[in-house]
């Protein structure tokens, strides 16, 4: 258990940077990834863009489905709060970090990276029971962003291990590997 925690300590910083997926060169943005202000430079594509809505046309008697909404840019306000959370977390004040992230989520609730950041903050607080739900929520919004989802599964594997769920941890690790491979193949 100790060893696995150590391993994660190494994994985590890279995890947070990795959250700003696959856009080399990766800037060192510190530990909590802060979503960029505008979509065009956005390493994390907002979920809407990634999971292109399938052309689920409404049944014939309905009007056609609404046109795809433009991907909402992450508001500068949420970005600022994520930055604040990053500073607080680095200073060891995880509660303040969590409070800022919750505020950010009220502004940009469908941003999967913010959910992941909150999961990581809870992990750092050793509040393991809260981690999995937050990471899964992040995944539910991550669309086709395989590397973000892989990171979430790695986090889930880690807390499952800490909480004594070996089999669940292994399953999560496998899922992370599968997605990690998919992300590299992209």
């Amino acid at each position, binding site marked *: 258990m100790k060893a696995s925690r150590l391993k994660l300590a190494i994994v985590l910083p890279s995890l947070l940077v990795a959250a700003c997926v696959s856009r080399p060169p990766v800037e060192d943005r510190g530990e909590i990834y802060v979503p960029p202000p505008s979509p065009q430079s956005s390493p994390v594509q907002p*979920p*809407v863009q990634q*999971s292109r*809505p*399938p*052309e*689920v*046309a*409404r*049944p*014939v*008697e*309905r*009007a056609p489905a*609404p046109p795809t*909404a433009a991907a*909402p*840019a992450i*508001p*500068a*306000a949420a*970005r*600022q*709060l994520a930055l604040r959370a990053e500073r607080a977390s680095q200073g060891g004040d995880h*509660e*303040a970090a*969590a*409070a*800022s992230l*919750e*505020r950010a*989520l*009220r*502004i940009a*609730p*469908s941003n999967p990276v913010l959910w992941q950041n*909150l999961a990581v903050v809870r992990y750092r607080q050793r509040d393991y029971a*809260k981690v*999995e*739900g*937050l990471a*899964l*929520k992040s995944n*539910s919004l991550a*669309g*086709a962003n395989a590397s973000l989802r892989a990171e979430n599964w790695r986090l889930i594997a880690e807390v499952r291990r800490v909480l004594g769920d070996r089999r669940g941890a292994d399953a999560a690790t496998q899922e992370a590997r599968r997605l990690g491979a998919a992300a590299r193949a992209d």
Partner: protein
Amino acid sequence: MARSTKRARASNGWAKRLRWLLLLGILFALPLAGIYGLWLDYRVTTQFEGKRWALPARVYARPLEVYEGANLRPDNLEAELRALDYRQEAAGRQPGTYMRRGNDFRVTTRAFQFPDGSEPSRTLDIGFAGRQVSSMRSDGNGVVDLVRLDPALIGSIYPAHQEDRILVKLEEVPPLLVDALLALEDRDFFQHHGISFTGVGRAMLANLQAGRVVQGGSTITQQLVKNFYLSSERTIIRKLNEAAMALLLEAHYSKQEILEAYLNEVYLGQDGARSIHGFGMAADYYFARPLNELAPHQLALLAALVKGPSYYDPRRYPQRARERRDLVLRMLAELGQLDGPAAQAARGRSLDVTPKGRGGDSRYPAFMELVKQHLQRDYRADDLASEGLRIFTTLAPSVQDAAEQALAARLRQWKDKELEGAVITLNVDDGSVLALVGGRDPRFAGFNRALSARRQIGSLIKPAVYLAALERPNKYGLGTLLPDEPISLRGSNGETWTPRNYDGETRGPVPLWEALGNSYNLPVVHVGLDVGMRPVLDSIERLGLEPPQPAYPSLFLGAASYTPLQVAQMYHTLASGGFRSDLRAVRAVMTRDGRVLTRYPLIVERAFETAPVFLVNYALQGVVWNGTGRAAANWLGPQPQVAGKTGTTDDTRDSWFAGFSADTLAVVWLGRDDNGKTGLTGASGALTVWSELFAAIDWRPLELYAPDGIEPMWIERDTGLLSADYCSGAVSLPYVRGFPPERASSCIDERNLIDRASDWLKGIL
């Protein structure tokens, strides 16, 4: 002689005994007096230094966050500012003021300390584009990303004796108020040692001249001692005690400390059972503003009230109050503490008090009850009422007002005085309660239907049944045909149960999404029986409801009773895509000096896979688009980006609607307390309240982007078979990837033959 000597001897003996007694008396009295003095001293110091007042907890609404891109329309910003008692002023540069020109605002916020940091006062120019904030700039400093307004005070939690006060520090008190008080009550305050003989002399002289008591000779120190430590009886002993304690108080503490205590202690009004103490609370009670924002005419009135808060009550006796206020203003001018023109201008002002004292815990009693329930888990009632805690809740004043108005507006239409209702509004993203209405009179702190009325939920249960079915994608998809056929079930008690559709008709096979959209009863019973009771109960439980015990098939039609709050919990799990959160009414509790005691964090747990919940929500959007909820279009326009479900119980005893956008969920219940018939269905009753509410508030449209694992498939409507876009009678429905209907329509086979033929042709070429 003998008699006289005898008498002399006797008197001698008396004198002797008297001397003895005196000596004895002094011997005992001295230490007794000393002990008494020490005891007084002990009382004076311990009470003054210890916690002086039991302070009620302050309960705050959620603060409004303003940022570029925020979904907020100008009128709702103004409503929020008014809820905070911001004043509209030409300049809008004083904290707590704003200016509106069309859709452009200038707002100067108040500084405020939140559990997670302080917000400074800022002057902002805020612009709107439609229903969104389009720009926010601070004075001279360019773009501001994010601003949090101070939160509205929505109530207090009082100790039993209901003394209400807002503590102020001496340096926060406008000097003019202190000047006025000293001029009125104690001109020698900074010279005397607790008792003022010149003060007494001046008072006597004034009283003699007037022929009645017009001035008291008590110093401010004595008044404080009287209020602080002593009963109000008028005896010489008490007067002596008062004088002694005043001297002791002065010996121990500085003038500033005594003055500050006095400013916070003094009694200044009565609001029902609640007594208003101190100038901080009085400013709030009479003017609905913080003390440091008051103008001279208002400060003068507060000083004037000290002499007799009920006799000079500005709301009941405005004439008397005004005369005394003007007297104070004239006196301030005479003493040179306010210059002549300013005093004259102030005398020209009206009393300026708000029509009704705000505060107390009466404004949102239903929500306050939820807050208290929530806090009971972690706090003792005593601490809540005495420690001056700051409680940060999730209430959104503009949403609350809209919910109250929507319910009131619709209830007026129906003119049924017995008809009651409840509304709960939630934030989907974090499960926080934005608004709660517990009955037709939202100011009445009585039976709270939102929390306490357990009523049958009828068709609101159906999504739970279909969810259990759609979790089995190998058997059920949105296009699966369900039998809309009569059915009779014999219970263990021998009674038969024969459910019927609301309109009494049967339609033969209907696709699942249409059966849910139109809330047909027979198909859902068939589905429930097919899936089985256990999975349905499991689905209900995972949605956040306690399943009924024992359960009968009538459960599939909603023969189970829940409160509107519980229904909100259930639909929240759907609205958030299968993630369950405990509903929250409180975000954090902070001490008076800014230490955070408890935070109530955002917790999410996955209760369902994303895919089946998505399918149910898709069908629930169908409810609003062309099912039983289509009347919503009358308020929200055609095909509004929301989803929801109507519910009606036997003979229209309960009218329900639960519906949500991407970020906001509301549950509305209508019915009678005696469980009588209302004549309202879910659609004709609760849905109209819900729609009225959603037309008034700002929400994000529900965009049902398919999650991973869901893809569109063409389904033949009348057969439920796999079809294709070129086939007639095909509808596109979302399906779980890898689980198409088992069999395909013959239309596809024909096309496949042609395709194969063309491939063969290609081979030749």
